């Protein structure tokens, strides 16, 4: 199956080579705290972009689903403090955590199966905030406010996960595979039905597809993607706390996806990169501790001026300069 045109494959390959070569060019701080971070949070944003662009579901529960994976892996991790009573090797804990996130995604989809647009946004937001409040108040499983610490991740080829190169390349490989997975899925019959549901769910139902089941499956797949992000984020933060999956974390992922552009899966990573850059360097731009005002304003400006984000700005510029069909540019995987 053709996922992308030859030209797009070439561009992707060039991008991938640059990303693979980054460790040669950048110091470890940039590698881990800017690009590595952008990749792992970008994965969660990717799951939102997938739902929003191909299904038309703007779900705010993706951070929560990532949190389910993060907490699962933290509870099962052999190095956790406090150590749970179901400690497993990482090789088992990680797949189980991703499975848990997939199930959580399906449950979110099931709860929200009859709701649309703005109602969906409200319900998923309520679920997300509710889950973080629950994690905060529950000591037995989630260790309350403190969360679970010292989740250092597995050793890969005998080297600790926290080694900058190991972390960066793992994040890159996982992100690239999930990105390709999204591009592949939206070309499958399942992905096409999903886009038909986005365009008109009643017509899709009328030609005999089960809209509800497709929606739930889409949420489960998004949960699978977000789950990988959640696991990697937990390793990146060396642990997980309720606030890392709370309202602001949820909004943060939404901001990444919207700034980058909901119109293309790559937008998620671009947005996450911009977010990481601003978070790191905001203090030098706008003064100490006023990061939220800066990011809020950038978000507001993007929403007001370019609803399809930076990716949309790029597409529009390209269209203006090259006179090419903008739709083809902005829609990427959706149109051929």
């Amino acid at each position: 199956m053709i996922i992308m045109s030859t030209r797009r494959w070439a561009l992707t390959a060039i991008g991938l080579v640059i990303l693979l070569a980054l460790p040669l060019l950048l110091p470890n701080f940039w590698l881990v705290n800017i690009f590595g971070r952008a990749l792992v949070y970008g994965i969660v944003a990717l799951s939102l972009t997938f739902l929003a662009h191909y299904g038309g579901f703007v779900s705010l529960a993706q951070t929560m689903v990532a949190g389910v994976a993060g907490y699962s892996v933290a509870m099962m991790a052999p190095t956790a403090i406090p150590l749970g009573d179901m400690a497993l090797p990482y090789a088992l804990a990680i797949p189980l955590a991703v499975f848990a996130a997939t199930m959580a995604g399906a449950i979110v989809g099931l709860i929200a199966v009859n709701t649309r647009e703005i109602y969906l946004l409200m319900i998923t937001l309520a679920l997300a905030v509710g889950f973080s409040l629950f994690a905060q108040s529950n000591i037995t499983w989630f260790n309350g406010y403190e969360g679970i610490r010292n989740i250092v991740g597995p050793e890969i080829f005998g080297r600790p996960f926290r080694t900058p190169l190991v972390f960066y390349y793992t994040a890159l490989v996982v992100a690239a595979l999930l990105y390709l997975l999204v591009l592949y899925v939206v070309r499958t019959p399942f992905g096409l039905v999903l886009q038909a549901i986005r365009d008109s769910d009643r017509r899709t139902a009328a030609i005999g597809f089960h809209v509800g089941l497709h929606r739930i499956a889409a949420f489960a797949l998004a949960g699978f993607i977000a789950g990988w992000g959640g696991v990697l984020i937990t390793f990146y933060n060396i642990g997980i706390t309720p606030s890392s999956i709370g309202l602001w974390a949820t909004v943060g992922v939404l901001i990444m996806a919207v700034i980058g552009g909901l119109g293309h899966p790559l937008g998620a990573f671009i947005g996450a990169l911009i977010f990481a850059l601003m978070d790191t360097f905001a203090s030098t731009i706008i003064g100490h501790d006023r990061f939220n005002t800066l990011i809020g304003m950038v978000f507001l400006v993007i929403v007001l001026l370019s609803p399809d984000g930076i990716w949309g700005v790029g597409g529009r510029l390209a269209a203006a300069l090259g006179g090419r069909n903008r739709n083809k540019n902005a829609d990427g995987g959706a149109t051929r």
Partner: protein
Amino acid sequence: MSLQFILTVTLNGLTLASLYFIVACGFSLIFGLMRTVNMAHGSLYMVGAYVGFAVFDPLYASSVWASQAWLIGILAGIAAAALVGVIMQVAFLGWMQGQELRQALVTIGLSIIIADQLLARFGGNPFQFFAPDMLFGPVQVPLIGRYPVFRLFQVGLAIAVGVGLWLLLNKTKLGIVVRAGVDDRQMLAACGINVPLVAATVFALGAGLAGLGGVIGATAQPMALGVDARFLLMSLVVVIVGGMGSIGGTALGALLIGLAEQWGQVLFPTYSVILTFVIMAAVLAVWPQGLLGRKPT
């Protein structure tokens, strides 16, 4: 479990429900008329509490105004929240009417900025209003014993707000215009009504209710950062359960959620949040529009 205990927990749930109702009916009102999901509603609650306190604190310390300080604080809180609400509607939301998702995103952006600016201006220290003497201290309630009089006042205020809103919507010209706007904005505009003005009025009213809730909430319990998330969440859940844009539905939703929260904390302390969401999911499964919500046309 004695009768007194059961009644006390139920009354606690009722007082909590009152606060949720005051805040959530502002949210519901704005959604009902303008289809705008105001994600900054929790931030408006904070604006009311912080600005109200900034006005209240020096007055309370002065000898002349101390007895009126709380009332003036309430008015200042309502006015500040209403003003921010009107600015939001006029400057940002008014010209993207109908683009619901974009409006929600805009209000999310605004809520981030408002919360951060409040933190910068007022700092993150917790604070609490002191209710005037009349509403301060305990009172004897039959079968329950001593109970804070302010909490009872909260219930009374919620009923007053509910009745007032009902009268406003059902018995006044403004109410007729607002309800007509819910059904058909374009037709309303064609009838010569200044719809943007009505929209700004409704936004001021809804935001003002959030501000009122802020001052009341910060009198009942100390105010700290992070309440915007809690009250946004509770407004969402109450309105989802009760049904959008209906005062009765909001009251019913607030009652259910308030009682569930208090009883949940008594019966299974660490899982009480779950109960709220089980209710929400169960209601959505059976009544996707909420208990008393209308089907969207």
